[in-house]
């Protein structure tokens, strides 16, 4: 029967991901107090994106989902968001510079 093909992740994996997420949270709070010049924001957003990716792939089961369209929806939504942010910032930045 097809209905028994659902992927069951191991409890250990969930605990591991949780541990990494907690460490990343502490790390981002500590690193923020260190002067990295312009890279503070890059590091903070990099860690946030890493955490969000882990949550989506493992907790939200994007990695092992049986529905292939999930990835298409996720990728197109994120691409659309980046388009919004990138073009808006490009617009405002160039106007403020001029």
């Amino acid at each position, binding site marked *: 029967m097809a209905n028994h093909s659902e992927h*069951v992740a191991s409890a250990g994996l969930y605990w591991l991901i949780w541990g990494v997420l907690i460490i990343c949270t502490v790390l981002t709070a500590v690193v923020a107090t260190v002067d990295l010049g312009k890279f503070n*924001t890059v590091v903070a957003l990099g860690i946030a994106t890493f955490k969000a990716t882990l949550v989506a792939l493992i907790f939200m089961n994007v990695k092992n989902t049986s529905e292939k369209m999930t990835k298409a929806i996720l990728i197109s939504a994120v691409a659309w968001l980046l388009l919004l942010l990138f073009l808006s*910032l490009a617009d405002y930045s160039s106007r403020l510079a001029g």
Partner: protein
Amino acid sequence: METPLAVEHEARPELRHHFADEQQQRNAASLGMWWFLGTEIMFFGGMFCGYLVYRRMYFTEFAAASRTLNLPIGAFNTVVLLCSSLTVAMAVRFAQLGKRKMQVRMLLLTLVFGLAFLGIKGKEWGDKYKEHHIPTFNHYNVISGEGALTKEPGNAALLGLDKITDPVKRQQREDEIQRRTKIFYSLYFALTGMHAIHMIIGVGIFIVITWMAHKGRFTPEYHTPLEIAGLYWHFVDIVWIYLFPLLYLIDRRGA
């Protein structure tokens, strides 16, 4: 293998007749939730975009105001939310394994973490009220008194207030800081407030889900409501994962 288009499922009451099998039914439900989350990304995306544009325009004022947010409490609240995501993932797993009691325990823990997050957030908002940092109130004041920005180390230099001696120019700069930080706090309350509304809805959904789990409604074959409610919960978690650095960590160097 031939798949019948419509059959009666006396032995499988959860399976609606317009689906070929459980797998298809479950995929359709999860896909619907993902479409909804796609619209949620757009919804929060608009606010994030407004935030980014103003942060770029008034970076020093945003950084100074960001330092008035309680970093240890914000980080702790992030941890609380991550714990709730773990318990949701575990609850789904116990449903897949057919363990009802553990499922209910994990869901009750999720509710505890969710409510704890909201309580801590409420305390932070209360502090902002005491510090006169709520932008719509007449007593809004970041220049003097309880919530003066210059109380935070490094803020006077960051805002350039330490170098201005001329009282007229100082007044002008102070007015400017009042105006610009108001935008930061407006975005702070809009973003965290909208996130909190999502949390409250999530808690409401999970009260129902916990009740259903308690009644033994979820089996290894059928636990779709729990699964898609979990997707929503994790999404709200992801929004906070971005809100935390964007609001609390704008510039904490040397703190």
